[in-house]
């Protein structure tokens, strides 16, 4: 039993870093959501898929926070990075030609798809550092005690997914989204 406690303690730093990463992913989703609501900037299908990509990355961090540190969970987050990067690169190439105003409102001088590509590259580096700082040991469910901050990060992440689910249903109904959406389908404006 004493060993189990040590195992949890050993990876405290890695767990904290994963919790922080989960907060960062939720914050990124929150910023995108704020722009959608405040500036009435409706997300296109590729924009929504980039949010899904961020959620795929977040799931890797979430698994580490909830189930304990595993290299498989980092692998999950890395695959999420590749998916997010690919989708955002595709959208960036669509608007890369000179004179193209880009899609949507820029944030700190860059469009959201460019930020998504940069974020996925930064996430790869962050995951690499976290993997270096993590110690993978055999753990059991019982050894995982969830700190309050970890619980808050999980709830916040869930809330962001619920918010995106509701807004997507309002925007696109239960079908396909328009390529350049200008109004919420279910709200009629």
């Amino acid at each position, binding site marked *: 039993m004493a060993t189990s406690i040590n195992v949890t303690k050993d990876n405290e730093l890695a767990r904290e870093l994963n919790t922080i990463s989960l907060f960062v992913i939720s914050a990124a989703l929150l910023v995108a959501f704020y722009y959608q609501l405040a500036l009435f900037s409706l997300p296109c*299908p*590729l924009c*929504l*898929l980039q949010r*899904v*990509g961020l*959620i*795929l990355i977040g*799931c890797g961090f*979430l*698994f580490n926070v*909830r*189930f304990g540190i595993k290299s498989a969970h980092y692998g*999950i987050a890395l*695959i*999420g990075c590749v*998916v997010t990067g*690919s*989708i955002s690169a*595709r959208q960036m*190439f*669509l608007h*890369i*030609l000179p004179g193209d105003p880009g899609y949507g409102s820029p944030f700190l001088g860059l469009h959201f798809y460019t930020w998504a590509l940069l974020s996925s590259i930064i996430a790869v580096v962050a995951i690499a550092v976290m993997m270096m700082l993590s110690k993978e040991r055999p753990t059991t*469910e019982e050894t995982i005690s969830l700190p309050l901050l970890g619980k808050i990060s*999980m709830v916040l*992440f*869930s809330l962001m*997914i*619920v918010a*995106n*689910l509701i807004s*997507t*249903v309002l*925007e*696109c109904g*239960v*079908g*396909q*989204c328009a390529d350049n959406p200008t109004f919420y389908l279910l709200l009629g404006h």
Partner: protein
Amino acid sequence: MYMFLPFLIALGTVLSTIVGKKKLSYILWLILLVISLFWFKHHATDQLNLSF
């Protein structure tokens, strides 16, 4: 395509993680990945007029 579906599956993944259902969480994440890639392929139809 049903754009709400990835978010619905993501919600299922997170909820199953929170209640501690490890295997179900992994399976749902995998389904989410496959659907995301499939939706991406569906929406990336225009030929890019760029040289690589």
